[in-house]
């Protein structure tokens, strides 16, 4: 009985793989929980290191949030490929066949989702620790139109774009590091300098979403973050096959 042998297209394959990755995350959600508590612990560490003065914590909130997400991401990214290496499952998929670019998109999306959930989870905690409030209104002046966002919408936008910025190059680097020696050191060593522009943009934009944006800078930082995302998702899409295929 030979039914249709037509393999799915890129988007459909990506969807199948994203479902697989999210399903795996759900099945091993104890690990995701542990990751969440790790991020919380990081927030506490920063709070203690920066001092009990809440004004300092408030001013540093943007940076603190993103540093916590970044540190947790190293663990999350490493783990997302350990599961593929265990029984060479990634190779098995590759030979199914699954387009290596679909493998990239799926991994990057699922990693991005995980980081987004993490970020959304620790934000209220940081808010409580540092006594944060969201700005009332954020205005973005673009050449096309002027947008007015609520503080929470602006914050959500930063979270999404920032997590996507970590996920794409993080996926490529995690694939590489998982096959090299000293992988635990290699991944952060490669990832951190690369992500500095995204970190700067995300931290600044977060601070503006919290404190207000009288000088209308939010749009520029968001633009930088969005450009970073666009460039690195494209680059990852093009280069990931060279990492997993021989």
């Amino acid at each position, binding site marked *: 009985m030979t039914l249709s042998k037509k393999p799915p297209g890129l988007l459909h394959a990506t969807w199948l793989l994203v479902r697989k990755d999210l399903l795996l995350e759900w099945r091993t959600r104890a690990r995701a929980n542990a990751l969440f508590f790790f991020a919380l612990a990081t927030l506490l560490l920063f709070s203690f290191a920066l001092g009990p003065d809440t004004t300092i914590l408030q001013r540093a909130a943007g940076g603190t949030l993103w540093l916590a997400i970044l540190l947790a991401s190293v663990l999350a990214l490493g783990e997302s490929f350990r599961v593929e290496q265990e029984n060479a499952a990634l190779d098995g998929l590759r030979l199914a066949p699954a387009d290596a670019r679909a493998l990239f998109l799926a991994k990057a999306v699922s990693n991005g989702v995980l980081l987004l959930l993490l970020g959304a989870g620790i934000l209220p905690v940081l808010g409580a620790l540092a006594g944060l409030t969201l700005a009332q209104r954020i205005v973005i002046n673009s050449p096309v139109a002027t947008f007015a966002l609520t503080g929470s919408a602006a914050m959500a936008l930063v979270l999404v774009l920032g997590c996507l910025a970590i996920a794409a190059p993080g996926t490529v680097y995690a694939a590489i590091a998982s096959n090299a020696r000293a992988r635990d050191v290699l991944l952060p060593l490669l990832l951190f300098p690369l992500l500095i522009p995204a970190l700067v*943009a995300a931290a600044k934009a977060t601070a503006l979403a919290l404190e207000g944006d009288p000088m209308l800078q939010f749009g520029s930082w968001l633009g930088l973050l969005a450009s970073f995302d666009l460039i690195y998702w494209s680059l990852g899409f093009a280069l990931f096959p060279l990492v997993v295929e021989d």
Partner: protein
Amino acid sequence: MARTIRLVLSVLALLLLVSGAWLGLAWAPPDREMGDVQRIMYVHLPSVWMGLLGVTLNFVCSVAYLLNPRRTVANLDADALAEASAEVGLFFGTLGLMLGSIWGRPTWGVFWTWDPRLTSMAILLVAYAGYLALRRFIDDAERRAAWSAVVGIIIAVDIPIIWFSVRWWNSLHQVQSSPKTVDPSMVFVLRWNAVAFLLLWLVFLSTRYVIARSRRERELAPPPLASEVAR
């Protein structure tokens, strides 16, 4: 033949460096605003330029390596050159950064400021240190070549992004004045030293390339001889 050229270049570089040092320290006039401290620019700027040149060459070699679809043995030349240019670039970049920092002490009173150029260079150096670390931790030569080419491209694409982001980030605080070399004799000395540094860079690069190439050859077994037993 190649060794003779390198020897000649080394001697030439040495001559130009020594004369360049004299030109920079004694012959050129002191800067109107900064005085003698400005003279370190004659070595700081060329060092930085050579760092960036190394980075650019690494990017070109990375792309060249990946563009070759068959990735035959011959293309490991591109990989060896990528390794050499990253190391030499890192050396000169670090040197330039330290010299810039030394200039900063008497000028601004501190060893480090978040000047966009210094900051971008520092990030770049850490990134390429990571690149070299990656190369160290992959054992298979062909895999190492492909993966470090990928990483090299990713880092290189980030350079303009880093530059812009750091500039915006810092523009909120202070504006650094850049040294302006208007006096033609200053320009001349700078160019002289730049050429000297370029020659030195070429000497380092070619030596390092030869080392990398011979390491590749030692790592990879030569092609096997034909089978005696046919199936």
